[in-house]
């Protein structure tokens, strides 16, 4: 037990402590042992490396966008270059970073450990989905290198099918392949959560992280195929002019949007739900308290997943869908906003009468709560059909989804990475500098994206390479913020790599968290557990944890 009052971190005596051997990293060596592994933890690390790579490519593109928008004229690059840049930024960030970010890395690593299983149900499929992901990613990069694509990530027809001559088919195929990667990840999670739970691990003893991933997986499995078929039809339309989306031949371009958004709206929840799972874990651990209203939070995840399928047409309010449809979809959109509100308040009240410390993951979690609240509320502005008319297709919408995706998901991702870093690598990250990074990220983020709300209200359209001069001031703010944000993202990479060698030895459970993953060595064995765990207590049961401790002490003394 530690007596320090500002932290719960409880590290073994550094003089004697060693990284436990063997562990899943040191077990086998050589590139092949990684490329052919079936171990969910190794695959998670493969994913972590690759999505970080793609994140920084997407980030670089974002940097270019902000630089271009520093001045009202299109001077840094020609408009068509700019179009290609923001298109690739969107495609890479959404399909190659946000969708797999938390599920494929932390989810992959932790779900089996949290439910007390040795591995995911289908290790080969798990590895396959990483290869599909890489194939998709490389194909996308290839498309970018060889001329790029300038349709916007939404591939709006008939623009994408008849009016551009860039690599639409290659990019479309890349997304198609990456889509199957996420289908198989989701499928694997559902099967694992159903079939691989340890004895005593009932549904309502699952960590909320697992619930969130279960909900997200349902969306992946049921939504992604529709995107796949929509993309296939676009490719056919381009290749053979089949006319299904071609107004000249009697096709309806809106049909594409229906199919596209049937996936791409739930995709937003695919991206945010796992993040919410992370936040539940972090907040509970650092306030030493069971999550307030466990069942409500668990079911709100499922509710989001279910309602998520009923709201897609709110992306088309002004695009000529019938006014009756507008009414229905607007109403349902309002309903889907409620579960998110429930989560936020439940997290807030988890702090109540807790015993709170402020390590980096907790700071990121606080950041998440603030930014996600703003992101969510502004979503309601767009869900209400009236204000949507003025705000949609402007920077308001850009700011809105960046608050949810970057402010929400990315914050959650970083929170999770810091929280489980000791478990993954066996070493602690440096606390002070990482707290600094968290603060920098938060400041930089707000400076970048808050001005964009105002720009949107003023009416500045999205996807503009040049804009009327009166918008410049706010754009300069935004670009300045982006620079700070960039620093905020580079820092973690540096000190996390540093910590691989110099970080303090973490021990099994530095945070004294309750999850099963913390009750085994870190980094874990390939089989995760020496003996099959039996879940004999509720989730987030800190009394149970204390009793375990006293037992150990007793047996030791």
């Amino acid at each position, binding site marked *: 037990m530690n007596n320090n009052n500002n932290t719960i971190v409880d590290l073994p005596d550094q003089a004697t402590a060693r990284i436990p051997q063997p562990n899943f990293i040191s077990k086998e060596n050589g590139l092949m042992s990684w490329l052919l592994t079936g171990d969910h933890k190794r695959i998670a690390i493969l994913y972590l490396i690759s999505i970080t790579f793609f994140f920084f490519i997407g980030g670089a593109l974002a940097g270019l966008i902000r630089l271009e928008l520093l001045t009202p004229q299109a001077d840094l690059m020609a408009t068509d270059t700019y179009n290609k840049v923001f298109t690739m930024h969107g495609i890479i960030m959404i399909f190659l970073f946000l969708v797999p970010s938390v599920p494929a890395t932390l989810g992959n690593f932790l779900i089996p450990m949290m439910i007390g299983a040795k591995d995911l149900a289908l290790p080969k499929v798990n590895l396959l989905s990483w290869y599909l992901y890489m194939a998709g990613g490389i194909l996308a990069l290839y498309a970018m290198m060889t001329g790029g694509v300038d349709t916007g990530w939404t591939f709006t027809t008939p623009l994408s099918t008849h009016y551009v001559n860039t690599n639409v088919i290659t990019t479309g195929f890349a997304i198609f392949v990456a889509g199957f990667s996420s289908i198989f990840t989701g499928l694997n999670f559902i099967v694992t959560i*159903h*079939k691989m*739970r340890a*004895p*005593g*691990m*009932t*549904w309502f003893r699952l960590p909320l992280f697992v619930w969130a991933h279960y909900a997200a997986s349902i969306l992946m499995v*049921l939504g992604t195929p*529709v995107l796949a078929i929509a993309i296939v039809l676009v490719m056919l339309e381009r290749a053979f002019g089949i006319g299904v989306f071609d107004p000249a031949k009697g096709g309806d371009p809106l*049909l594409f949007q*229906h199919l596209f958004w*049937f996936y791409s709206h739930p995709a937003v929840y695919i991206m945010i739900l796992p993040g919410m799972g992370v936040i539940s874990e972090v907040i509970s651990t650092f306030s030493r308290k069971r999550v307030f209203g466990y069942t409500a939070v668990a079911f709100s995840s499922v509710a989001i997943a279910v309602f998520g*399928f*009923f709201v897609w*047409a709110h992306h088309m309010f002004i695009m000529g*869908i*019938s*006014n*009756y*449809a507008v009414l*229905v979809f607007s109403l349902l959109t309002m309903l889907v906003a409620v579960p998110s509100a429930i989560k936020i308040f439940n997290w807030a009240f988890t702090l109540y009468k807790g015993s709170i410390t402020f390590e980096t993951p907790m700071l990121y979690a606080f950041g998440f709560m603030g930014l996600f609240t703003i992101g969510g509320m502004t979503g309601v502005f767009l869900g209400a059909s009236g204000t949507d008319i003025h705000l949609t297709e402007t920077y308001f919408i850009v700011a809105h989804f960046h608050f949810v995706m970057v402010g929400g998901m990315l914050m959650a991702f970083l929170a999770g990475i810091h929280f489980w870093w000791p478990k993954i690598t066996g070493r602690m990250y440096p606390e002070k500098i990482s707290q600094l990074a968290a603060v920098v990220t938060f400041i930089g983020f707000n400076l970048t994206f808050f001005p964009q709300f105002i720009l949107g209200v003023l009416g500045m359209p999205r996807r503009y390479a040049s804009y009327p001069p009166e918008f410049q001031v706010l754009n300069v703010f935004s670009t300045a913020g982006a620079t700070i944000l960039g620093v905020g993202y580079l820092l973690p990479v540096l000190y996390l790599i540093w910590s691989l060698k110099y970080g303090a030895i973490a021990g099994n459970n530095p945070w004294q968290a309750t999850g099963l993953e913390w009750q085994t060595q870190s980094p874990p064995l390939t089989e995760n557990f020496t003996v099959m765990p039996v879940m004999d207590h509720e989730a987030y049961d800190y009394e149970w944890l204390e009793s375990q401790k006293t037992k150990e002490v007793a047996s030791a003394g």
Partner: protein
Amino acid sequence: MSEQTKHAEHEHHIVGPMVYVAILLALLVGTALTVWASFLELGPWNPIIALAIATAKATLVVLFFMHVKYSTKLTKLTVVAGIFTFLILVSMTLADYISRAWGSW
């Protein structure tokens, strides 16, 4: 839902050839029926009957050839979930297209 309890309740049922033959015949009869019906002039009933028969055939295949009749609740739930989401996609998209014709404000 945990493993032990599942094993207890889960008993793998082997469907015998007689059942399969029966289903095969039923399916063939269904096919004959639906083709015959399609030659009659039934106006709006043509598609309804055709789809009804198709659904009946599909149900037979799912229940017996695919053993769903004898499988766990989970499998049944999975099937239902699939149908449900499919119906959302079709019905809500069609709802937009049909209501467009009702004229706009």
